[in-house]
């Protein structure tokens, strides 16, 4: 029997229209699960905690899922406990999901809470699972600036998916409509802490401009119009070309941009 991978999906939000859609990273979690299944490394199941009636669930299902389980929850309910129960009941050995939800609090806590409660390690921002051999996975993490890091970890684990992971496959209408949306009734625990919080529509936050703190008018004027200068840089003029190039090369090594 293949070990199980569980992809947890949430309802996303289209950045332009604000409409519901597959969440970018959660879709990638399903995609990764499907790939693992196709490679016969794991068996995929997919679950959502929330409203079973959302048409977005059909979009996830349309990726080729015969069944999608919904842990029925209202908005503002704490989904953690039902999820833990579900993961344990499923005997999953890998849980995949997005880094942050596109709706609601977007705190990114859920995967960490899950991992902690399950006692599993957590891998953040996974780009790719290269292999799983004898229960040990070789995982590529996405780092800033397009960089990648290879990490090896033994199953079971929780992983969050970076946008660098393979994009979710197309959703197909027919299978999506026909998929079995299995509703699992769960006990609901209201999130009383968050109920205290105030939610308001956000205004865009422009990036900070240069801050001119100069006191005098002349200095403010200069600060505004000055050209960027570094000052105090090393200048090699009379050395040989070899020495000059070596200096640059050493600099690059020191800054660790050459490895």
């Amino acid at each position, binding site marked *: 029997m293949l070990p199980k991978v569980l992809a947890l999906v949430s309802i996303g939000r289209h950045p332009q229209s604000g409409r519901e859609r597959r969440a970018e990273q959660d879709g990638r979690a399903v995609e990764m699960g499907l790939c693992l299944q196709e490679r016969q490394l794991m068996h995929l199941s997919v679950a959502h905690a929330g409203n079973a009636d959302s048409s977005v669930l059909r979009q996830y299902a349309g990726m080729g899922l015969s069944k999608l389980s919904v842990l029925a929850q209202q908005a503002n309910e704490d989904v953690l406990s039902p999820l833990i129960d579900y993961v344990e009941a499923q005997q999953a050995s890998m849980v995949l999901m997005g880094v942050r939800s596109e709706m609601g609090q977007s705190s990114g806590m859920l995967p960490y809470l899950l991992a902690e409660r399950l006692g599993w390690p957590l891998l953040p921002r996974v780009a790719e699972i290269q292999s799983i051999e004898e229960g040990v996975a070789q995982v590529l993490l996405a780092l800033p600036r397009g960089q990648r890091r290879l990490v090896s970890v033994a199953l079971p684990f929780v992983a969050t998916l970076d946008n660098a992971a393979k994009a979710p496959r197309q959703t197909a209408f027919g299978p999506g409509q026909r998929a079995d949306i299995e509703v699992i009734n769960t006990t609901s625990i209201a999130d009383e802490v968050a109920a205290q919080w105030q939610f308001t529509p956000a205004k*865009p936050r*422009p*990036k900070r*401009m*240069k*801050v*001119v703190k100069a006191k*005098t*008018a*002349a200095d*403010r*004027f200069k600060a*505004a*119009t*000055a*050209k*960027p200068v570094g000052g105090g840089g090393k200048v090699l003029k009379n050395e040989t070309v070899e020495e000059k190039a070596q200096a640059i090369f050493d600099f690059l090594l020191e800054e660790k941009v050459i490895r």
Partner: protein
Amino acid sequence: MSQYDALFEPLNINKLTIRNRIVSTAHAEVYATDGGMTTDRYVKYYEEKAKGGCGLCICGGSSVVSIDSPQSWWSSVNLSTDRIIPHFQNLADAVHKHGGKIMIQITHMGRRSRWDGENWPNLMSPSGIREPVHRATCKTIEVEEIWRVIGDFVQAARRAKEGGLDGVELSAVHQHMIDQFWSPRVNKRTDEWGGTFEGRMKFGMEVLKAVREEVGPDFVVGMRITGDEFHPDGLNHEDMKQIAQYYDATGMVDYFGVVGSGCDTHNTLANVIPNMSYPPEPFLHLAAGIKEVVNVPVIHAQNIKDPNQAKRILEAGYVDFVGMTRAHIADPHFIAKIKMDQVDQIRQCVGANYCIDRQYQGLDVLCVQNTATSREYMGLPHIIEKTTGPIRNVVVVGGGPGGLEAARVAAERGHKVTLIEKAPELGGQISLAAKAPQRDQIAGISRWLIMEVERLGVEVRLDTAADADLIQSLNPEVCVLCTGGRPFLEQNPEWGAEEGLVVSTWDILNGSVEPGKNVLIYDTICEFSGMSAADYLASKGSLVELVTDDIKPGVGIGGTTFPTYYRSLYEKEVIMTSDMLLEKVYREDDKLVAVLENEYTGQQEERVVDQVVVENGTRPNEELYYALKANSVNKGQIDNEALFDIKPQPQLLADKLDGMLLWRLGDCVSQRNIHAAMYDALRLCKDL
């Protein structure tokens, strides 16, 4: 849609929908005549921008509301009479027809003017303090006059509205009457019109209230303000935020235009229209600061010239509209070209400030590189149509701005064009000019021309010195000579150019002569090359003295450009000496001695230096012209009547040319400037 969507998102000002985020902000055009009436030229100038897609044009920088705020010096628009209304109607129709919106800036300039002309008025300001840039003394304004001027604002706004314009912009910037009252630097009053914050605000507030009452709630009334005067005794950024907030709270202002810097000194004036030495959008932070505290849209101009730059500013949300005024002077089809996916074909403003520097001399605003701008009414085209006549073989000699423009225009007409250049690269004197510190942007002029010439399939032959044989072998129907000039060092034999005692600024800038340690530059021209050479040498570590026989070094350079040279030269301790003639240069040991003579006393003095650089203008390279002249059908002559009238040269009207048509233009005729050469090239070649 495209990567530039942020530019094309419409936005309302009051109830007026502006189709995109690009504004041509108020500037003095110097095109109004007949006592400040907008003319055909004026209308066509703005119509071209609207046709090119500009969202909002705010015309008539410093258009006056009162008869004692003179307009004649800068031929600005006069709103003090109902005579202006039908003129406005023509203007509004022309712009509206193309989906653009047009407003006008209205103001009383107070002390910032000249009194010595037209009606010879007494100028007025809150406390009668002299304005240094215009050298204008004035009286202290009396309360009766204050109320009269407020009434004038009201009437002016009414005329703008009746004329069908979309709004008015109250100028409270550039030290006009309103901000003269605001600024503690010039408002020393102790009555209700000064003293406290509210007192200083009162005049502007009364103007605003009265104007708003006249025009009703829906007509756009905006306000242009500074973001920081940069004067120790002036208004700083925090003051301006407070002022903006104060006016914004009335709900009567529909937008704020924000300008960085005051401008009542030569040095601050240069900030207002930042030339090529400035970083991009140097004062955006001031406008963004104002935007943080007001609820209405904010417009900001100042060194925003590039679509990507504009996009970045708008996407970041620093301001709501970007002013791209000089960008539109350089290319009124700026927006259209973005929309046509021809971003690389936009003729980008390089910040040469030829436009504004002419304006400050009371001359009509022209673009150094786009000679069609504001000459639309004469029939000079921005978009050059293909000829429907015969396709001609055109040979252009010389790849400077004149030659490049001639080649470009001829190629746009659909002719077969060959461009011959002696040097290994195109650009002519522009390439030299671009070598100086902070002047590199000027190469944008030739870079655009080169890209266009390439796009249009002109055959370019570099490293080729043209002679009569070569020209004849190419068998051109039209030959345009733009062979430029060469430094004129032999005027005074005593300078010793023959013996190599003096070198030219060209030698310095193109690097063919190493900078000396202690250098004297003698500059009789007092425009860019001498200053640039001085700046170049000083930046290489030379000790430089810049000597001229004129009134001051760089006296020929306009008001927004000489200050940035001065900043740079003083910083590098270049000594500037005026009124001295270079009489003689002689060698003494390993040194050179330059003998200078005071023009007014005849007193002589010497400088011991190791390099003498002379800038004495150029002499035309006319050898090729004389070699070709005799064999040309027109004997090299250009029909000035047709030329000045923007009509085709008479030979072109015939069905067939009976031989080679020969024209020469640019410095190979006599030394003028980039604009002159390119203007001739355009008006000659547009009818080819």
